[in-house]
């Protein structure tokens, strides 16, 4: 009985092995072909996949007023949200064909590289490590930020160099942990870091007095300050301890989609420079004589084709969310609760550093 069973086992294994060896070479070639096809498909697929499912899946924050925040009815708004709507409008002609995935700082890159979202537009800092090691590409900068610190006024501190021995609250999975560590090390000061996973918990802990200092990007401080019980009892210290260029991120290896996102952002900035707004875009497209403007709005040249989009891609994007300046004023500008001046985020010819490559 035993020898019989061994015989069967040997037979099956032998047959299997023979089959594989026999087909071996042929199969390897076939497998390679399939792999190549998948790679090709992958490399060109984001735009096609987005078209096929009918909407852009956009990774945003879990609630950062002015950047990406859902209101009481669940409608998302913010400067990062506007960028996603602009991309959706460039692809589909309508800024509503977008769905949002709220992501924590920790989840965001994994969500993007696993294909769960098509764009990550979540106040994400462009750093070399992220650009080179995470398999990601930054499509540009939509807000030039810097890390700051907020303290209660009652602490009587005027500058960050007085903060030796402080308890500092922040959230995990961001560059802020590294920057604050560097700053305190370089100033030879001690501190204790309490790092939460979500921004809401950081605000709650800081508000209850667990920490003396709340550190994150200055735009984030302005946004989170509105959530404190007494916002006026707190102040942002003057020091800016890091460079934080925030921008949209896509997966590496899909140049077409990368270009779509990159040039949508540039189109919005160029639109502000040329004075094209949400209200006058359609009119300018039919009446203007300025060739640069006509190229932007798709009346001259085939710039949409080059991206794999229709020629009125930029016009649609501007009609959906307005130009960069309009989006800024509506979401984070001086007339919003965030009260952030344009500062370095003004256009290059207006004292800032926003300078978009031309469309031609």
């Amino acid at each position: 009985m035993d020898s019989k069973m061994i015989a069967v086992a040997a037979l099956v294994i032998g047959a299997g092995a023979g089959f594989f060896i026999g087909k071996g070479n042929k199969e390897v070639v076939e497998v390679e072909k399939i792999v190549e096809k998948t790679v090709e498909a992958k490399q060109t697929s984001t735009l096609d996949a987005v078209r096929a499912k009918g909407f852009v899946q956009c990774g945003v924050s879990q609630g950062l007023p002015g950047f990406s925040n859902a209101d009481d009815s669940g409608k998302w708004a913010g400067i990062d949200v506007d960028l996603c709507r602009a991309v959706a409008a460039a692809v589909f002609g309508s800024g509503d064909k977008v769905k949002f995935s709220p992501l924590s700082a920790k989840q965001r890159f994994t969500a993007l590289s696993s294909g769960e979202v098509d764009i990550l537009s979540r106040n994400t800092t462009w750093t070399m490590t992220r650009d080179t090691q995470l398999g990601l590409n930054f499509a540009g900068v939509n807000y030039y930020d810097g890390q700051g610190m907020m303290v209660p006024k009652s602490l009587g501190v005027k500058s960050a160099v007085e903060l030796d021995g402080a308890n500092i609250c922040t959230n995990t999975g961001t560059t802020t942990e590294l920057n604050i560590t560097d700053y305190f090390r370089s100033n030879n000061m001690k501190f204790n870091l309490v790092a939460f996973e979500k921004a809401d918990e950081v605000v709650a802990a800081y508000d209850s007095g667990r920490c003396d200092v709340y550190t994150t990007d200055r735009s984030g401080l302005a946004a989170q300050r509105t959530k404190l019980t007494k916002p006026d009892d707190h102040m942002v210290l003057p020091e800016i301890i890091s460079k934080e260029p925030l921008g949209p991120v896509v997966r590496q290896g899909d140049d077409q989609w990368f270009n779509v996102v990159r040039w949508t952002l540039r189109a919005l900035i160029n639109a502000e420079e040329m004075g094209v707004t949400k209200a006058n875009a359609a009119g300018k497209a039919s009446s203007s004589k300025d060739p640069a403007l006509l190229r932007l709005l798709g009346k001259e040249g085939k710039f949409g084709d080059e991206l794999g989009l229709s020629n009125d891609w930029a016009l649609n994007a501007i009609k959906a969310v307005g130009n960069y300046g309009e989006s800024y004023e509506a979401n984070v500008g001086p007339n919003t609760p965030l009260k952030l001046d344009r500062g370095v985020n003004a256009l290059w010819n207006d004292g800032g550093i926003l300078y978009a490559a031309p469309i031609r």
Partner: protein
Amino acid sequence: MNWKSNTLTKFVNDANVRGVFFQVVLIAALVFFFFWLTDNTLTNLRNQGKSLGFAFLSGTAGFQISQTFGTWLFDYKVGTSTYLDVYFIGIANTLLVAVLGIVAATVIGFTLGIMRLSNNIVFRAFATTYIEMLRNIPILLQLFFWYFAVLRALPGKRNKLEIIPDLIGMNITGLYLPAPLPQEGFVYSVIAFTLAVLLTFGVSRYAKRVQARTGKITPVFLIGTALIIVIPLITFLATNSPLGWNLPEFKDTGPMLRRGYQAGSGMILVPELIAVWLALSLYTAAFIAEIVRAGILAVSKGQTEAASALGIRPNFTLRLVVIPQAMRVIIPPLTSQYLNITKNSSLAVAIAYPELVSVFAGTALNQVGKEIEMIFMMMMVYLTVSLITAAFMNWYNSRVKLVER
């Protein structure tokens, strides 16, 4: 010809032959599945321009970690400590809260379980209310409750709530205790303590033999307590009391930022640890109480009646007759609860307790981006800890289980 086909039919219809055939097919399918899984992962990683490897572990971690047991144990220093240190710190903090949680949940759970069977209506009602409330509220909510509700109730950083004046006090930044500072010669007291414990075990075994032979009961508990206290104490005094205390220091003058408990004085339990510990042990205690109740009820009433017929007093009946038999029912589900505590400790990431998920799969993962390796390493920790806990409990179970004769 006839003979041949006959043999073949027999061969094909043989149950054993078929069994082996399908086993081999199944194994081949499994091997292929895992091969496909690995190949798929590698291909996708290559397409994203990433590679697999553990070289990142020796890289320097450039971020601060909240000062806790782990950072103290591994002497964490920003700029010199590596990601491997971060991994160990995460493990240490996870294990700390798991062990503390298991001990507390067991004590509270057993007490509640026995209370729930008590004849006293107040005890019974309290235990029932506790169990039904706590086991029906999700643990994450309880965690937030303990952290935020209780945290806000505590005095601020510049004030304190003194539990024992000058020795133990707390405020929103944590619970401050005196830190022991062992000095030269303290090791003798530790040795004396170990010897006393071993001696007590010896006495206990001897007492059992005496009881079996003569029926005389030796007061092992009293003798043991005396031994464990007296021997180390004499050694301690004889070696000139080699233990200092670093008391928590509180200042309420000077610049605003410097007021409050001073860094580096005393020992601090951060509120994050306290909240996780409370939430885990109180939540799991409700489940353990039900397990204990089930275990005790599983011992038939006849056992108690037989014991009292033999003239055994009620508290001895519980200790010598009921509990040992109940343990057989209690241990297997209790093991699951211990495993739950270990795994639920990962929820602590939500309130900034620097355990494994928070510092390693959170902060460190975000800096180096090695998802597969790091999540794998993290899973291995939980798997190992769970398997060790399970192995220990199985060993204990086999010791207490019914010995059939």
